Structure formats: structure tokens, C-alpha cells
């Protein structure tokens, strides 16, 4: 099939070269639209790069490291907590608790800050706890869905192989769903970056990229805002890619049945 036709055909699968050409052309189109955009408020690429250079000289690198480390720490803690809670749903006692925690994702962080402030002993701890909370409520929802979606036949298979119920949990839910954990982690690590700038705006101790972003936004320096957003986007893409690589290395079986391999 002609590639030009294939890109608009449902369920068409392109070869790697065609995919690369498609992505490159779309990136070029976006850049051209940006460069020639008639919107006067939209900063041009040159202005954004200039603002990025200025911000870098003012210490954006150090702020990025602060934010990155905070995010990694929060995601690590949230992952462990959420997995433990999600795995605990194998016991009926924990199912209502996890269901309730999952519903808390509708709450605003701003309204919760006061309670977390009372519990935290430092600004860092406050930011960490807010981030862990906001990521965990989404993470635990995703993982509980993964566990609820395990087909009955997999439990039957484990039982016919004479596994006790805890071994069934280990084989079917923990080991059997480990590739899905990476998928849920990927989504929630991205949520982490989204929440990070909000949390750093609410709690300004230690600074961080969120603090700078809010300051620049407050003073309507759009080129600087774009520069920070672009930096966060690149860091997020790197993080996403790294999780994907880790998944492919540790779970090589996960992509075998997919039509569209990522």
C-alpha cells in the first residue's frame, strides 16, 4: 500500500523508516507552525531559546535537579505504597479501603495542604507527602484495575498446578502483571511532573522548577514560561523513554502479541 494512503488507513502498520519519516515531518510542521504563527503573544523559538539561556545562567539547572530528585523520590515512595495497597486487595479487608483511597483522586491538593502541613516536619517533607498522595491515588486506581482485570482462567491455571493461594497471588498478580506495572508507572510518573509544578507553587521552600515557572508566569514572561515547559517536557520524555527501556529489558514477552509495538 502507498505510504501516503497507509497513514490514513485504519489499523495500518508502517515499517520503521516510514514511522521515522512520519514523525520527522510532523515535528517539522509543528516547528513551522510555531515559527510562522500569527499569534503575537506566542513567543518565537529564538525568544524561547534566549530565555532558556538566561534562565540557565540564573540557576535553572540546579532547580531542575532539585525538582527531578523530588519527583523521583515521590514516584519511588508512591510506587511502593500503591503496589502494596493494590496487591493487598487480594484480601477482602483491604478492598473498601483501596476503593476509598482511589476516590480521593477527585480532591484538590490546595484543600489538603493544611492537613499535610500539620503532619510534615519540613518543607521538603510537605512537598514529598503532597506529591506522594497525589500520585498514589492515581497509581493505586490504575493498579487495582489491572488486578481486577486478571482473567479467572489464570487463577484456575495456578490452582490446577497445586499452588497455594499466596503462591497464586505471587505468580498471577505480582509476577504475571509486572509488565502492566511499568505501564501504570509510566502514566503516573508523568502525572508526577504535572503535580510537581503545582506542589512547588504551593510550597516554595527549596525552590524548584515549579517555583520559577509560577514566578515567570506571574510576571507574564511567556518566553521564559515556554522555555521551562520545554525543559520539563524533554525531561519527561527522557523519563518516559527510560521506563519503556526498563520494561522491554525486564519483560521482553510484553510486546510479543502487540500489533503496534512502541
Amino acid at each position, binding site marked *: 500500500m502507498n505510504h501516503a494512503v497507509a497513514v490514513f488507513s485504519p489499523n495500518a502498520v508502517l515499517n520503521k523508516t516510514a514511522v521515522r519519516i512520519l514523525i520527522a515531518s510532523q515535528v517539522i510542521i509543528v516547528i513551522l507552525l510555531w515559527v510562522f504563527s500569527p499569534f503575537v503573544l506566542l513567543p518565537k523559538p529564538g525568544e524561547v531559546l534566549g530565555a532558556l539561556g538566561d534562565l540557565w545562567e540564573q540557576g535553572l539547572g540546579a532547580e531542575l535537579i532539585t525538582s527531578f530528585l523530588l519527583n523521583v523520590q515521590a514516584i519511588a515512595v508512591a510506587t511502593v505504597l500503591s503496589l502494596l495497597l493494590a496487591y493487598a486487595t487480594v484480601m477482602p479487608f483491604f478492598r473498601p479501603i483501596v476503593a476509598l483511597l482511589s476516590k480521593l483522586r477527585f480532591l484538590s491538593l490546595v484543600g489538603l495542604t493544611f492537613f499535610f502541613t500539620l503532619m510534615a516536619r519540613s518543607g521538603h517533607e510537605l512537598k514529598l507527602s503532597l506529591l506522594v498522595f497525589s500520585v498514589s491515588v492515581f497509581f493505586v486506581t490504575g493498579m487495582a484495575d489491572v488486578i481486577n482485570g486478571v482473567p479467572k482462567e489464570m487463577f484456575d*491455571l495456578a*490452582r*490446577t498446578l497445586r499452588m497455594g493461594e499466596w503462591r497464586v497471588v505471587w505468580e498471577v498478580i505480582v*509476577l504475571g502483571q509486572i509488565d502492566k506495572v511499568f505501564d501504570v508507572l509510566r502514566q503516573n510518573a508523568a502525572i508526577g511532573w504535572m503535580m510537581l509544578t503545582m506542589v512547588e507553587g504551593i510550597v516554595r521552600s527549596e525552590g524548584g522548577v515549579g517555583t520559577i515557572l509560577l514566578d515567570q508566569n506571574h510576571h507574564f514572561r511567556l518566553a521564559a514560561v515556554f522555555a521551562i515547559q520545554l525543559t520539563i517536557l524533554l525531561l519527561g520524555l527522557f523519563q518516559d523513554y527510560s521506563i519503556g527501556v526498563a520494561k522491554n529489558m525486564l519483560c521482553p*514477552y510484553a510486546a510479543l502479541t502487540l500489533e503496534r509495538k512502541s
Partner: protein
Amino acid sequence: MTIASYSFGETLLKIENVSLEYDGRPVLTGVTAEIKDIIVPGSIIGQVVGILGPSGCGKTSLFRIIAGLNKPTSGRVTVNGSDRPVMAGEVGVVAQTYPLFEHRTVMGNLMLAATKKEKDSKIARDKVMEFLREFGLEDKFNLYPAQLSGGQRQRCAIIQQILCSEHFLLMDEPFSGLDLIMLEKTCELIAKVANMDDLNTIIVVTHDVTAACSVADHLWLMGRPPGEEGNAHEGSRIVKQYNLIDRDLCWQPGIITTSRFTDFVREVKEEFRRL
């Protein structure tokens, strides 16, 4: 092989007055049957029982009870003369979709089963390799289930259950969706597994009358007895049993091409339609 040359030995599997209800609705009522060891002097012959019945007659429910995966409302299933109800793992189960652990390789899947009986992992591994060679999968041991073809996956699922169970294998709709060649191969595979050991017993749950007749030595026809379709107080039971050995219809290559086999299939189908 002639009819006179076989006899029955000990009871291997016994279904005693099994009834099952879901939300007060009867699914099975008083299902009673048994499978006895078939002894043929000088030959290794296992047992193959086909359970036939129309859709929705409770075949899968009985299947799960025999496998020890579900408990009946009353009655019980016992194996190997035991005085306690069957437990999950004593009867191997090969489900219609041939589930395997996708996160483990073929070897990993089979070792899970083999180490349940053999604690020495080297001996267990040797046994797995022996089975893989026997079933033509020796070069697939390092692949993941998703890399196997449908037929290879079926064989792998069968090996896994044989390694773990006590000579019993339950197969759910093994002929479903197969073309003629694959159907013949599956029948050959069932016969091969059954005849690996005198005590091997395979129960095939299916609604494919011809395939069941071609592979089984006994057939159980399940359903509500004629005239009871509208009786909501009665669940299904085994309404008729056929001994294909006495009819000289099993253990003979090419039997399915004979007129007496065709006549028998017609007879079963007519009974089937009345259910």
C-alpha cells in the same frame, strides 16, 4: 484388538450424586458416573471419556467440579479411591484457550509443574525435556508462550498439566474452531497422551459429537431428560452412557471411515437432539 480382550480394573474417578445450584436455580441434579481402569493384557491403554451435551447444559459446571475448582451443592467427586473430595491440582485442566503464564518461557511454565512432584530441579528439568522431545517441542523450550503456534501452545498446556496431575486430564472443548487436519492431530494427541500410561485418564468435554466418538472409549451424554426441559426444578444429569469398546468402535485406526461408526454417530446425534 477384540472386545473380549479387555476388562475393568479399579475405579479411578467417581462422581457421586453431584448436584449444583446457582441462586436457587438447579444446574446439575444427581450426576452419577464413574471411570474404571481399562485393562488390556499386553498393552498400555489409558481411558478417554467424552462428555457430550448441548450448550448451556452444565458441562462446564461439571468440568469445574471434577477439576476441584468448584464445590458442588451436594454430592462429591473422588479420584484414585480416595475418601475425600477431589482437590484442585489432582486433575489436570486444559482450558479451551490453553492458558499459560505469559511471563515465563516454555521451560519456566513446565518447571513450575514438574517441581510440584519432583523436588530435585535437575531431575525435573530432565523430565520436562523428555516430554518436550516426545511432543516435538524440544527446540521451543526457551520461547515465551506468545511465540508458539496454536498447536504448540496446546501441547505445551497438556504437558504442563500431565506433569502436575495424578494421571487425570480434563480438556474443555479441545476441538473447537479446528480445521480438519488440526482436528485429526488433536485426536491423535489425545490418544497418545492417554496411552502413555495405563492409569492416564482423559475427559474431553465437547459438543462435537463426531470428534468425541472418534477419540473416546466411553461417552456420557449430558442434559435434561426428554420431557423435562420446562421443569425448572431439575438440573442436567448424565442421561445416557455409551461403551464404545463393546461396540467395537475404538482403538482402531481408520474407524471413522466405517459405516458402523457413521451409524453410531447418527444414533448419538439423534439422542443429542432429543435433549
